């Protein structure tokens, strides 16, 4: 009865959770509770205070070396392990920033567990990727299962059937009836694949001469291409996104060795009996601006719950951005006069274009219209722009501080004017123009004639090749801000911050990665806009090694997660527009540890960019 709580407490703290029950109990039962008043200090050089692992029940502790803070510990964090394991090259002093209550675990028992349990001891010498995966796994296993994040193969998959392109239509329908499938894949001789569905059969019977049923060259004409497919280990929400994006009812499921079956929307929807699937549909079914206004907070809730479940921020961002784009698409549909549909291209840029904005903090968008619009149509466009700007704010997208919005005539121009504008950027390079180029490069079309955006970007790429020096000046932005990590591996907090608590994680870590990867992508002609996809493409092209690419991607993911959590926290405190600062005192020791390693990766990446783009003499 009595000490169960002590045992429970310890069993919830990684890595103690991997210990067998007997060892865990032995450790838990040996703990005393230390009361450490505010500002008191523990000096591990004094025998009476060392020899224990301290696990914090309540309070905040700073680790000091040579009077500089090198680490913070808070609830459920522990310290003293490096001293016990003899890993500390310098003796630390621990100062209680707040009144602290902590369990004291005798070193002898800690060492015993360390020596006896491999899994336990590995924890203290793991690499950054290991640690990150463990954080995600541990949150994921603790949380209830979220269907959205299940893999495709956990849903009901209809049997796979396929025929050769020379089969007859009759054979196809017989095969479909035989296995009760409503779709069949058609394998073409050139290696491509098409699909025939039951609605094609209906249409065929209704409109085509029936003697063609036995013809061998009908399938080539009727089969739909391309076949939209999803990998069996992909997340279910990706499958749902694909279905809504392409407005189809089924997806072919593939494994590494080929197609394995079909996934139906109705089977998928029956699994989404929760809010996350519903939000997706709500955006789809919205038919007024009021509907869209209501969706905003629901997306925020979804972000909250997905993050709590330990879903990687990259995936949350992907889902949320898909939703945001749908919202914007719907909004344009409501506001734009129909006759202008084919005369505009509207695109989002910056973090939205990269699909990396999770909390709506900003909007960057632009509009390109056809060169032959009439005076009257121009008037309609002006009206649309003003209304769009207003309603975007209503549905929860704050205005862009740099006014990079289609309501600004600078960003609402005819195709040729826009191209000329991009041309000007190269003729008159300035910091602002570099920033504009970067933002445009991340652009993704949302509405209208998508190819116009490609044309505009093409100008950018072409000019970049004409002016090789551009890329060097462009890349220097990576080094614009210092990485907040000291020579000895301690975190450096913002200068103006007296409490030594805040770090701007965007400037310090996220921006250098995003911009550096953008530079490499521009140089290598990678068209993707999302940083993770750019990294993947650069890995495929051999620009990055696989190890480096994965490390960079995971690091970015982690930094984005910290930023997201901090923003959610700020929102919950009632802040309307959260900033990019994270508070060190709110991070566990493990999180800080990984943050330090992450910033190490950022620093290494900066060095790489400096060398690659020859930036040494420009600094």
């Amino acid at each position, binding site marked *: 009865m009595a000490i169960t*709580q002590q045992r429970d407490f310890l069993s919830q703290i990684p890595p103690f959770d991997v210990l067998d029950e007997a060892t865990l109990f032995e450790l838990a039962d040996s703990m005393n*509770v*230390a009361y450490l008043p505010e500002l008191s200090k523990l000096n591990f050089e004094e025998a009476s205070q060392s020899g224990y692992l301290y696990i914090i029940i309540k309070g905040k502790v700073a680790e000091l070396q040579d009077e500089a803070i090198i680490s913070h510990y808070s609830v459920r964090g522990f310290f003293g392990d490096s001293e016990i394991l003899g890993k500390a090259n310098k003796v630390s002093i621990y100062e209680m920033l707040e009144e602290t209550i902590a369990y004291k675990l005798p070193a002898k028992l800690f060492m015993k567990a360390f020596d006896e349990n491999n899994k336990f001891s590995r924890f203290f010498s793991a690499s950054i990727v290991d640690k990150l995966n463990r954080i995600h796994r541990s949150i994921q296993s603790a949380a209830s299962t979220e269907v959205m994040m299940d893999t495709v193969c956990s849903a009901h998959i209809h049997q796979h059937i396929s025929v050769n392109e020379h089969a007859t239509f009759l054979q196809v329908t017989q095969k479909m009836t035989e296995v009760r499938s409503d779709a069949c894949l058609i394998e073409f001789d050139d290696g491509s694949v098409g699909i025939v569905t039951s609605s094609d059969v209906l249409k065929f019977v209704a409109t085509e001469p029936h003697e063609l049923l036995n013809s061998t060259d009908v399938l080539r004409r009727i089969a739909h291409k391309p076949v939209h497919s999803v990998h069996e280990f992909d997340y279910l929400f990706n499958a749902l996104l694909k279905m809504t994006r392409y407005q189809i009812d089924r997806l072919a499921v593939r494994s590494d060795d080929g197609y394995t079956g079909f996934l139906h929307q109705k089977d998928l929807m029956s699994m989404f009996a929760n809010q996350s699937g519903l939000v997706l549909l709500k955006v789809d079914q919205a038919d007024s601006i009021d509907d869209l206004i209501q969706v905003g907070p629901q997306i925020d809730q979804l972000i909250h719950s997905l993050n709590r479940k330990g879903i990687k921020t990259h995936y949350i961002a992907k889902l949320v951005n898909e939703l945001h784009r749908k919202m914007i698409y719907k909004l344009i549909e409501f506001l734009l006069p129909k006759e202008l549909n084919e005369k505009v291209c509207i695109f989002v840029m910056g973090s939205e274009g990269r699909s990396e904005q999770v909390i709506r903090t900003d909007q960057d968008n632009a509009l390109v219209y056809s060169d032959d619009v009439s005076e009257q149509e121009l008037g309609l466009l002006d009206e649309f722009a003003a209304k769009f700007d207003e309603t975007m704010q209503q549905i929860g997208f704050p205005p862009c501080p740099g006014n990079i919005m289609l309501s600004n005539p600078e960003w609402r121009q005819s195709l040729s004017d826009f191209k000329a504008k991009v041309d000007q950027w190269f003729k008159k390079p300035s910091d602002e123009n570099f920033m504009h180029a970067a933002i445009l490069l991340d652009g993704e079309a949302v509405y209208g004639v998508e190819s116009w955006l490609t044309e505009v970007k093409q100008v950018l790429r072409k000019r970049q090749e004409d002016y090789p020096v551009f890329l060097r000046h462009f890349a220097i932005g990576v080094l614009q801000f210092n990485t907040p990590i000291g020579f000895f591996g301690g975190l450096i907090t913002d200068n103006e911050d007296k409490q030594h608590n805040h770090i701007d994680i965007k400037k310090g870590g996220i921006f250098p990665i995003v911009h550096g990867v953008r530079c490499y992508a521009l140089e290598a002609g990678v068209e993707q806009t999302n940083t993770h996809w750019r990294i993947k493409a650069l890995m495929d092209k051999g620009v990055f090694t696989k190890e480096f690419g994965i490390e960079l991607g995971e690091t970015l993911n982690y930094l984005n997660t910290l930023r997201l959590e901090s923003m959610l926290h700020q929102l919950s405190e009632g802040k309307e527009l959260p900033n990019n600062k994270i508070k060190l005192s709110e991070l566990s020791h493990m999180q800080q540890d990984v943050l330090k390693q992450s910033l190490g990766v950022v620093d290494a990446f900066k060095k790489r960019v400096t060398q690659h783009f020859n930036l040494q003499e420009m600094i």
Partner: protein
Amino acid sequence: MLSTVKSWIDKTKQVRERSRLKDSDYEFIFDDIEEDVYVCFDCETTGLDRKNDRIITLSAIKIQNNELQTSTSLNLVVKQPEDISEESILVHQIRNVDVVNSDFVYSNEQEAIADFLQFIRGTTLVGYFLEFDVAMVERVLKPWLGVGLPNPQIDVGDLYYDYARSQIVRSCIEPNIDLSFDHILQQLGLPNLGQHDAYNDALMTALIFLKMKQI
């Protein structure tokens, strides 16, 4: 002057008490009190009647150098002659089956108290509404050894009351100070460790005590 008188009175009282002790094996309960060694304790009982209710569990934790020695805490469970009443189960959530399942169950209160006396030897007692817990122990102790608990006693409720009074600006209205356990924890910013059982209560009381000692 006053303190001299007080200590003289205490001394006389103790001598008188000592002379009443029925069993000389227990002389040690009058041992000198060590400085900065405290025992925080709490009982769960069958009810609130100090004459007729009995101790079910008793937890005691030693405090020394700002440290709660939880690893050597004393946790006693006493076998009950009658089933535990339903109301008291609701308060402390000890069911009859828990008593039976405990690792070691004292067959009567006297044996349990004998171990408790060893545990608190030479220490100052600390508790929350300590007077009740002391009364429950003395209900066993007095008929058996003829004496009460001689250890000095500190009630964290009193400490908190004085502290809270000192925080309030003097006025002619007597302040209404909430002395409930949860309120005290909350006011002092101490973690509520959940579940009210003897051990947790003793632990939290000890934390209150350490904090009050700091202030």
